[in-house]
């Protein structure tokens, strides 16, 4: 039991590090990250970086060589990510496309699709988004209402998607729509590749409670998609979407943000009415609790990586990361605000402790508990797929979609 690389892994890591040293700047502090990601040229810098990675053979390491990948191992991919995280490089723009969309194209697309789309995506020339969620859908992803009707060799899409990250700068998307409302809901769906610049596609930012706008609504009005851009057969949409969602589950991270260490720093500085916060047993209890949770998740990931390195596929166990870290994000933010007493309401980065990171986290945590699977849905997943408990009674299993009760 050790964290050391095997000789092969070590050699690969050295190679990666050498290349990164030659092509990127090493991070000096935590703050560096934020600065690297901000600015109006962030997208262009991300595209440049992705191209560079692809040229050097560090993009999409595990994908087949024939489509532009490296045919490498999962652990090589992990090693690259671990190392890259130490450098000041633009990230984020490609997570969904390369993490979820293109894997779905690889699994379900025709040879033509793969030849056309995979290469440019790897080289960063085309960015992809995922169009699944709908206002009426939410946790019930399959309950979607956006519809497509066949018209000759084309399909005509009408409806609305929500919570689409990056829709405004993306070139392509994968969209799941209802093509047959007369069969039970999981059976009437079909998946398409859609050109985001098509006429009739309108993208509007969604402003979140916190004031930021990281997501979009996407409206489809008579958007025409050639039948040749269908992924899978008509009616297979749910199965195709599951491929995407499985990849999402793997891609979802720990949520980030301030953790026990930042709380220790704060508690050292904060004065409660009866003395320094760090001396208060209730504060110390929370530091201990959040340390234990963070470490537990960290070493769970190491266990998963070990399984990966032995060729195993991680299962729905990875849901536990978000089950633990999402409420922690919210609660830790909230508790840290308590330590600042009345002043905890201040959200000005120049005044509030640690640049208002706790206040922002308290806002963000409320969203993170919902995005990509609510606390409740993730517990269902663990209970059903890990522990083998039965699904809740499903009234929607055999009912035609257009006869199902829907509420407002």
């Amino acid at each position, binding site marked *: 039991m050790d964290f050391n690389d095997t000789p092969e892994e070590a050699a690969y890591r050295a190679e990666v590090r050498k290349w990164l040293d030659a092509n990127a700047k090493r991070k000096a502090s935590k703050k560096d990250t934020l600065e690297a990601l901000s600015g109006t040229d962030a997208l262009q810098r991300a595209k440049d970086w992705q191209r560079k990675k692809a040229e050097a053979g560090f993009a999409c390491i595990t994908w087949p060589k024939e489509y532009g990948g490296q045919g490498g191992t999962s652990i090589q991919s992990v090693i690259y990510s671990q190392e890259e995280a130490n450098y000041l490089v633009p990230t984020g723009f490609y997570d969904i496309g390369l993490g979820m969309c293109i894997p779905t194209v690889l699994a379900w697309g025709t040879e033509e699709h793969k030849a056309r789309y995979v290469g440019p995506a790897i080289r960063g020339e085309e960015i992809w988004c995922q169009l699944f*969620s709908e*206002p*009426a859908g*939410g*946790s*019930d992803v399959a*309950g979607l209402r956006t519809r497509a009707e066949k018209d000759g060799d084309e399909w005509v899409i009408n409806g609305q998607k*929500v*919570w689409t990250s990056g829709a405004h700068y993306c070139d392509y998307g994968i969209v799941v729509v209802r093509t047959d409302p007369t069969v039970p*809901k999981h059976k009437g769906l079909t998946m398409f590749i859609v050109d985001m610049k098509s006429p009739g596609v309108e993208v509007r930012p*969604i*402003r*979140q*409670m916190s*004031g930021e706008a990281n997501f979009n609504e996407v409206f489809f009005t008579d958007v025409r998609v050639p039948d040749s851009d269908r992924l899978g057969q008509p009616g297979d949409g749910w199965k195709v979407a599951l491929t995407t969602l499985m990849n999402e589950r793997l891609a979802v991270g720990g949520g980030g943000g301030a953790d026990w260490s930042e709380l220790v720093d704060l508690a050292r500085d*904060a*004065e*409660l*009415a*009866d003395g320094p*916060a760090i001396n*208060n047993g*209730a*504060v110390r209890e929370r530091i201990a609790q959040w340390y234990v949770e963070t470490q537990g998740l960290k070493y769970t990931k190491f266990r998963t990586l070990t399984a990966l390195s032995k060729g195993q596929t991680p299962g729905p166990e990875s849901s536990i990361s978000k089950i633990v870290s999402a409420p922690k994000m*919210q609660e830790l933010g*909230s508790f840290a*605000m*308590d*330590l*600042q*007493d*009345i*002043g*905890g*309401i*201040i*959200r*000005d980065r120049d*005044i509030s*402790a640690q640049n208002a990171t706790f*206040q922002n986290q*308290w*806002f963000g945590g*409320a*969203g993170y*508990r*919902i995005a990509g699977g*609510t*606390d*409740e849905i993730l*517990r269902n997943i663990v209970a059903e797929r890990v522990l083998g408990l039965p699904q*809740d009674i*499903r*009234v*929607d299993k055999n009912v035609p979609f257009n006869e*199902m*009760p*829907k*509420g*407002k």
Partner: protein
Amino acid sequence: MNFDFSDDQKMLKEQVSKFLSDKCGYDVVRRVLESDELYAEDVWKGLVEMGLTGTAIPEEYGGLGLGALELCVVAEELGRVAAPVPFSSSVFLATEAIKLAGSEAQKQKYLPKLAAGEIIGTLAMAEGTNAPSPRTVKASLKGGKLTGTKMPVPDGEIADIAVVLVNTGGSGDKALSLAIVELNGSGISKEQLKTIDPTRGHAALKFDGAAAELMGAEGEGWDLVRRVLDGAAVWTAFEQVGGAETAMWMARDYALERYAFGRQIGSYQAIKHKLADMYVKIELARSNSYYGAMMLNDNGAELIEAAAAARISATQAYIYAAQENIQTHGGIGYTWEANTQFFYRRAKLLALSLGSQLYWRERLVTQLEARNAA
């Protein structure tokens, strides 16, 4: 045994409720959130016209001469609609501080104007991100001149007068005193702060030799301000219970109208039990608040415990209800357009405004220790 509000009090509650549901809908809260307005002046004027700013001010000072219980029912209704008005600053804090600590002259000077809504008052305690205490308050009063920075001060930009917690150099708990200062004089600069809840404005007030006068005996400030906070905690608990109930019913209504997997989401135990937990917390908070109200009204021997219990349970109920209301709504609940955010913001603001739970737990347990020893 009559552990309930009187018919007259309930009628007052009804009046306030009716006025607010007419005049202070979500559109008003949103207007203040999204604009540069510092408060809903229209709503405030209406409350003033109803005489509510003078609810607990004796008639001799121009008030209605009612008691603590009447303020409780008003507070609950203000909380229910998340009213963006300076009621708590002016009435629960400034007015009560003057009633408690003011000289006869100070009372004569300020209470009638506060009662009539001619001026708005506030209490300036905090100095940044530490809990105010004899160890951290540095603002000083010397020779009638106030120097230092207070923030966040609720309604600091719109307030006409402030009761200020100042350091007058005594030792230990005797370091602090209360001062009263008119905020439109010279030597004062105000700066609006960015906070988690823009529907209730807070400012940084910088005093650079501003004219101020001592209120109450020198060295008694820490004791006095804690007594003011005890009362404010009870009224704020009602405000919190009102807000928590709105959040709970909002979640419940959404759980009835929203379908997932072909069923109302309110038929799933994860949602049902979440809502049941909201209800339980709110009921505990309401009951503790009632007892706090009784102790406050009767100046009872258990006021400190009762106020702390009301505050702690109301804070927990509101935080939980507001937070899980968003969770029940899912994605839509996290958007700017949703009204859920008003309660999320306000719940946390009120949780901190009179000092966090850490302060109140400590105040409570210190008292319980003393009682258990006796």
